[in-house]
């Protein structure tokens, strides 16, 4: 995806506003951090800023959640996690927060979200992406989630992807 959506800001946004320099830092780093001894100095030199300013702005974006984290994104397939199942759960709405936090803490759950139901076709309100070396490992992890949920699990299923129809490399937002 192009950087275009990344730097769009709404005038009426209630989120902390980014200024032009923040946006330049975002554009300069969205394909990655320079792999040199002093990476923040390298970004600063490229943008005509001071390294202190770059680091201060990155730190602030980390604190406000605009940057989720600075780090590596492993290709889970290359690490041997070849089975990926989207497990979906129907749990009582009043418990979804508490249960989502517990599931998110489990190993090899890479995303965990509360999403709306679409009855009757879709009764599930809690999504957890589960990764394993094979489907048996995914199923075992799903079983562990079911045990953790106990009687709050009013129904669940696992959707495996059969084909990637499009993947344009959404860089932002993960």
């Amino acid at each position, binding site marked *: *995806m192009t950087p*275009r959506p*990344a*730097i*769009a800001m*709404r005038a009426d*946004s209630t989120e902390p506003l980014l200024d032009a320099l923040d946006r330049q830092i*975002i554009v300069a780093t*969205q394909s*990655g*951090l320079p*792999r*040199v*001894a*002093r*990476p923040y100095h390298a970004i600063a030199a490229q943008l005509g800023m001071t390294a202190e300013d770059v*680091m201060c702005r990155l*730190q602030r974006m*980390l604190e406000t*959640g*605009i*940057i989720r*984290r600075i*780090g*590596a*994104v*492993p*290709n889970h397939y*290359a*690490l041997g*996690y070849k089975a990926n199942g989207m497990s979906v759960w129907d749990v009582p709405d009043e418990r979804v*927060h508490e249960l*989502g*936090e517990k599931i*998110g*803490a489990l*190993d*090899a759950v890479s*995303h*965990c*979200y*509360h*999403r*709306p139901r*679409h009855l009757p*076709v*879709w009764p599930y309100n809690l*999504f957890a992406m589960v*990764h394993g070396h094979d489907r048996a490992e995914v199923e075992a992890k799903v079983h562990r989630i079911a045990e953790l949920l106990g009687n709050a699990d009013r129904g669940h299923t696992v*959707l*495996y992807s*059969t084909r*990637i*129809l*499009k*993947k344009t490399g*959404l*860089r*932002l*937002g993960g």
Partner: protein
Amino acid sequence: MDALDRAIINNLQGGFPVCDEPYREVASQLGTNTNELLRRLDTLLENGTLSRFGPMYHAERLGGGLTLAAMQIPPDDFERVAAIVNAFPEVAHNYAREHALNMWFVLATETPERIGVVIAAIERDTGYTVHNMPKREEFFVGLRFEA
């Protein structure tokens, strides 16, 4: 991939420091030096073990719209609909999945308002309902992939 590569992958999934010489700080935690860490990080990125290294930005907090949507498409019409859906530049990922709802895609738009506009356009162009499933809450996930 040896023990140091694995340690690098596991360490770098956590918070990378913001300081003058962050690689040196990580290298010393891992019992290696800056040059060796950078050399291995380059290799892990080049051979595709890591898909990316750097800040991960939060799309919605940058002002954009992001959602997950699903459609139920009859198998004999699936390819036609997939081509129409994929042609929208706002469709970032699209997966076929084993379920009555058999097409799942992520929409990323410049503004949150555009999500509804794009969904309406997809419904109009394909003739099928789009089930919009925006996240209501995101739960924290810790370290995910042990190398």
